[in-house]
């Protein structure tokens, strides 16, 4: 902080000189200039230290922020582009729009559909999802620069310099606002560039950016409520999920009585801008005004509390450990059970949603043979429904693998944070420590997959009136992804044991590679040996496909060998 501060002080001088009037009544001149200097000085200095904080925030986010903006823009623009290519005839657009409109669960997932133009379909497909993602980006950004800094004590250091009480809050919100403005601009430019109407593109971009702005303000308020960054993120994300669910309820009502729900949620407002189908600009003003009100409330909350304190008090926990808390495995369970519960609920929810969509998949896709081909290539089945469900199961397998990889890589974060040190200075062995985390990773992934199978089996079975048969069917299909999950987790264990310094980046890269090869390999017609690198290429294509034991046995053997290599590496290397 000293360097920018020093510079700010240097800059004050010329501005004071400029502020002095060049001529005038001599006797009053010095007083006037002095007074102006005093008025302009502190205010200008505060402005400059705030600028310094903003620059610091931007610098700390110079990788993450562009990555978010890039991914979000690409997802939106590529959706618009692919719709333009897939649905070239008016008839194909009419049929897909009719298919979407028939199913309440489709509408609940994407939001209301206001027409059958490419623009309207794009808004339905990606508008609400991208608005939620922009909200997530803003939440992470704001909490990172406010409560997380406060929790680690960095803000105390910054706060002791010449910055105002609300400087960190303001700089976090300002950076998030700027990011959302850039996002709006990029989405507008991208969609207009692929040939969608400019007005609608601007409306969609601004709607998504405004939604991000609202949740930046929500996160700013949440950061005042909770004393921990984790809690603040939790509160803000809960608000975001609630906003999405309220929007879903309103959209699924299809003009029924609950339609007003669309106006009760910031995500619903995004749909009510009706980009490409009316472009209702005043709704944008409503969103910005809502963001401003919440931001002012956050500032008021910040004035009402002390540094490091939250308005929601931390609940006290048990003064003694439960009898079971006596091994690395029970410790891992105790630390991670809350997070795992979230994954399981998510698995149930998305399993239910996808199972419900599956029953109407034929009419949903209409005559878009391109999409059908893509799905059958992925799912590998003749029956479109089975192919769709098999593709869903593979994606859910990848999601479960993401959970498993994150659980395994906790080993490394515990090691870097020196939490592993007191643990390994007790009777706990390194092997036991790593095994505990691996068991929890695989067990957790199995439970998440079971939840997906359960959710999809129940909802698909309810649709087809055949729960008894569909439930075990889809449960099995979901759990058939486990060997591939095991293999990816074992890669993470091997990396942790052998290349600890780069294992976090390498572990996620390995998962991303497995995902890309399994998801896009068939569509891109990559050579089979290259596709075979991904464990998910070897997963059985269930439901509908056949199961052969041989690839699964190989996957498990490879996983055991990799995990063993990792543990041997861990036993031989330094900790820390």
């Amino acid at each position, binding site marked *: 902080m000293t360097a920018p501060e020093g510079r700010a002080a240097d800059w004050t001088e010329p501005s004071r000189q400029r502020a002095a009037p060049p001529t005038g009544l001599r006797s009053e001149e010095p007083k006037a200039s002095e007074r102006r200097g005093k008025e302009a000085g502190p205010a200008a200095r505060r402005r400059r230290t705030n600028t310094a904080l903003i620059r610091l925030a931007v610098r700390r986010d110079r990788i993450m922020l562009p990555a978010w903006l890039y991914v979000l823009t690409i997802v939106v623009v590529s959706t618009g582009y692919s719709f333009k290519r897939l649905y070239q005839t008016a008839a194909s657009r009419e049929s897909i729009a009719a298919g979407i409109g028939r199913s309440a669960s489709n509408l609940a997932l994407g939001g209301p559909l206001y027409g059958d133009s490419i623009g309207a379909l794009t808004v339905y497909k990606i508008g609400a999802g991208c608005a939620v993602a922009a909200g997530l980006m803003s939440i992470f950004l704001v909490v990172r620069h406010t409560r997380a800094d406060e929790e680690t004590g960095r803000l105390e250091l910054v706060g002791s310099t010449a910055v105002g009480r609300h400087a960190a809050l303001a700089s976090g919100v300002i950076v998030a606002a700027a990011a959302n403005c850039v996002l709006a601009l990029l989405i507008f430019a991208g969609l207009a560039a692929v040939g969608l109407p400019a007005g609608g593109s601007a409306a969609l971009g601004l709607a998504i950016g405004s939604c991000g702005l609202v949740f930046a303000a929500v996160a700013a308020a949440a950061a005042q409520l909770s004393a921990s960054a984790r809690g603040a993120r939790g509160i803000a994300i809960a608000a975001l999920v609630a906003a999405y669910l309220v929007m879903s309820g309103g959209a699924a009502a299809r003009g029924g009585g609950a339609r007003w729900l669309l106006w009760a949620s910031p995500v619903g407002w995004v749909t009510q801008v009706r980009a490409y189908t009316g472009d209702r600009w005043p709704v944008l003003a409503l969103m910005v005004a809502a963001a401003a009100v919440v931001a002012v409330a956050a500032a008021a909350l910040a004035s009402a509390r002390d540094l490091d304190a939250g308005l929601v008090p931390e609940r006290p*926990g048990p003064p003694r*450990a*439960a009898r079971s808390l006596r091994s690395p495995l029970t410790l891992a369970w105790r630390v991670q059970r809350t997070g795992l519960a979230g994954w399981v609920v998510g698995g149930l929810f998305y399993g239910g949603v996808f199972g419900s969509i599956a029953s109407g998949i034929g009419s949903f896709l209409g005559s878009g043979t391109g999409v059908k081909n893509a799905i059958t290539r992925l799912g590998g089945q003749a029956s479109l429904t089975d192919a769709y469900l098999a593709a869903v199961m593979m994606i859910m397998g990848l999601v479960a693998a993401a959970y498993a990889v994150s659980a395994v890589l906790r080993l490394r974060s515990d090691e870097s944070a020196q939490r592993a040190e*007191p643990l390994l*200075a007790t009777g706990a062995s390194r092997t036991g420590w790593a095994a505990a985390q691996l068991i929890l990773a695989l067990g957790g992934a199995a439970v998440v997959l079971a939840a997906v199978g359960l959710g999809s089996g129940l909802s698909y079975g309810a649709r087809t009136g055949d729960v008894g048969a569909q439930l075990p069917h889809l449960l099995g299909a979901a759990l058939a992804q486990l060997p591939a999950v095991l293999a990816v987790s074992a890669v993470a264990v091997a990396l942790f044991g052998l290349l600890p310094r780069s294992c976090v980046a390498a572990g996620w890269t390995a998962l991303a590679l497995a995902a890309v090869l399994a998801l896009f390999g068939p569509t891109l017609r990559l050579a089979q040996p290259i596709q075979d690198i991904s464990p998910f290429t070897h997963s059985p294509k269930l439901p509908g496909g056949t199961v052969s034991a041989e690839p699964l046995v190989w996957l498990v053997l490879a996983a055991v060998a990799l995990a063993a290599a990792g543990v041997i590496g861990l036993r031989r290397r330094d*900790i*820390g």
Partner: protein
Amino acid sequence: MSEAIAASGLRKHFGRTVALDGLELSVAVGEVHGFLGPNGSGKTTTIRILLGLLRADGGTARLLGGDPWRQATVLHRRLAYVPGDVTLWPNLTGGEIIDLLGRLRGGLNAKRRASLVERFDLDPTKKSRAYSRGNRQKVALISALASDVELLLLDEPTAGLDPLMEAAFRDCIEEERRGGRTVLLSSHILSEVEALCERVTIIRAGRTVESGTLAGLRHLTRTSIAADLAALPAGLAQLPGVHDLDVQDFTGNGAAAATAGAPGTARDGAGPGVRVRCQVDSDKLDEVLRQLAAARVLSLVCQPPTLEELFLRHYSGQVPAVGQPRVPA
């Protein structure tokens, strides 16, 4: 086996940085041993090697008669460790962590745990993310002190504690010592070391520079002397072991005149007396006092070297005055 810790010629490097360069450390069973050295001198690295968390590049280390690398988990059940910078699992309470670490060591004395929680004034129901640094340290300390172990490895355990808690800590270590437990105490707080430790090892840049009893170490440094004499003894400045000699004329009414010039040109008997200040190597004290006494002593103040002086000398890298025999006492 009379040595709880025996390390000899320990070497460890991280990349190009040399952390330990032939370190020697010997701790007898039942003693409280002070482990001192400037920041970055290798204290924590040594302790981590003793815990089998790091593998030494050279030298030997024995802990409780075993090999700290090969027999890590067996040995860990007989010791408790308090890290210098305690990081805990944020969503566990302090009480849960005390119990967990104790159980992983093989058992916790419930009565002792309760009395320590009270003594250190810890709220065990708080989530550890809400604890300050001092409170996190208390969690680790209580868990270690309440465990039934033979050896305590404490890495700057009081760095975050307030003076009241520090006093409680000293009482606890005193009890441990009387109970026959061995303690390796890495610390920067000299009064703490002086109060608790029989023997100390001072390291610098990964090497042991001094090891022995505090009394023995004091003997290796200089005593400062201020004396009013009737006359200046001839040849005082030439005596071996006399340093920083300062001679002032002493007029009797307290006003000192000009300072003495270069050694050897001292003005014998100028005025009613002289005030002499000097530093004397402790093993040459006898000879110097004899000389002073011969010149008739009017008053004499003799100060033993302070610990601060002792440590500053080693920390800043000065060679000890008469440090040729680096004898363990």
